[in-house]
């Protein structure tokens, strides 16, 4: 869901930039010295995931991992995703630099939102799996909706765009949900503090 350069209007780009800067500043303030490694590792994972494809039927999909980043990093997912998207833009021209702010909000905003919605459910060992799956898949769904909304602001029909983008990303939603579920399960056993859960 990288939006390319040259599509969005200046006010939209500016709004995206402002939101991203705000989120990034808040995120950076919350990173403690000992938290920095997960931030760096997950940012790297996000960067690499966007480049690696998994063959699926006639085409292929790539991992996004925004849900996981939201869960583990909280507000720090903003600087993490910003950095990864910035590097993708300058290395491969994926997305773009003027549109970097918007793309970051599109990815990080829903991730953060989902982590707030479902984060507390992770404590409950019965709800944990469902919460993790929901975080992973809903992050993608909200990112798709947000993308369609932003495109609408630049004169593209919302319903049509939304249908296309969501439909294209349904396999990704399922994969992300499963992946987030597995990783959360793994982390719960190995290092629950990273998810702010009392040891299981």
């Amino acid at each position, binding site marked *: 869901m990288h939006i390319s350069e040259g599509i969005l209007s200046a006010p939209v780009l500016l709004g995206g930039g402002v939101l991203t800067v705000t989120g990034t500043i808040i995120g950076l303030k919350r990173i403690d010295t000992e938290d920095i490694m997960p931030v760096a*590792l997950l940012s790297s994972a996000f960067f690499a995931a966007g480049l*690696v494809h998994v063959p699926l039927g006639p085409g292929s999909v790539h991992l996004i991992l925004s849900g996981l980043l939201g869960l583990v990093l909280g507000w720090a997912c903003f600087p993490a995703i910003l950095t990864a998207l910035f590097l*993708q833009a300058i290395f491969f021209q994926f997305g773009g630099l003027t549109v970097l702010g918007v793309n970051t909000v599109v990815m990080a905003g829903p991730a953060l939102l989902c982590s707030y919605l479902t984060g507390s459910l992770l404590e409950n060992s019965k709800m944990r799996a469902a919460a993790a799956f929901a975080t992973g898949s809903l992050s993608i769904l909200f990112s798709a909706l947000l993308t369609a909304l932003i495109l609408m602001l630049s004169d593209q029909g919302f319903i049509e765009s939304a249908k296309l983008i969501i439909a294209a990303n349904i396999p990704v939603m399922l994969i992300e949900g499963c992946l987030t579920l597995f990783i959360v399960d793994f982390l719960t056993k190995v290092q629950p503090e990273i998810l702010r859960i009392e040891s299981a």
Partner: protein
Amino acid sequence: MNAPERRYRIMFGVVLLFFLLPLSVAHAHKLNIFAWPAKDKTIQGEAVFSGGRKAKNIKIIVQNAETNVVLLETVSDGQGGFHFTQPEQAVQEQMDLLIAGDAGEGHRGEWLLKAAEYITAPETDPPAVRKEKTTGAIDEELVRRIAVQEIDKKLAPVRQALAESRERKPELRDILGGMGCIVGLAGLFVWLQNRRKEKTGHVHSD
């Protein structure tokens, strides 16, 4: 090894897992537009997503690269290809052409076709005018025109390959480079944080 070391090794392992997935990078992050001059004063082009998927039936817009005035619009075919006749105005004014493709869903790509690339010397009059030439003598102009046409035909696939090779595909070194940048930035961040803490008299102790 103690707990913090162990958890970082595990996290590193998780990240490394991604490298075990097949590394051919095919996905629709970027829409690539390629264009080159073809025979009979046409311009031929191709719209392809990064990774190889053809962009079928997308809008193609040809503009004056300097003024952004739209000269013509067309649509790519089922193979992502498109072609159009060189606009008269463009040839007369020696315009650089900006050929843009819009695939919807936020995907847009561009290709700049410089005037020097597609504008060839003006063709001479067709052979009908040259009736006064002695019969039997080889009509030089005709031969020249045929030669140019044949060369254009042969060159078209070469030009296409050249245009496509300009696209840079992500490689392992790029992924590792990006990750190195991220880790470096993280280290810089920690260093700055520590300096700030030292200055304010606190020393972070855990």
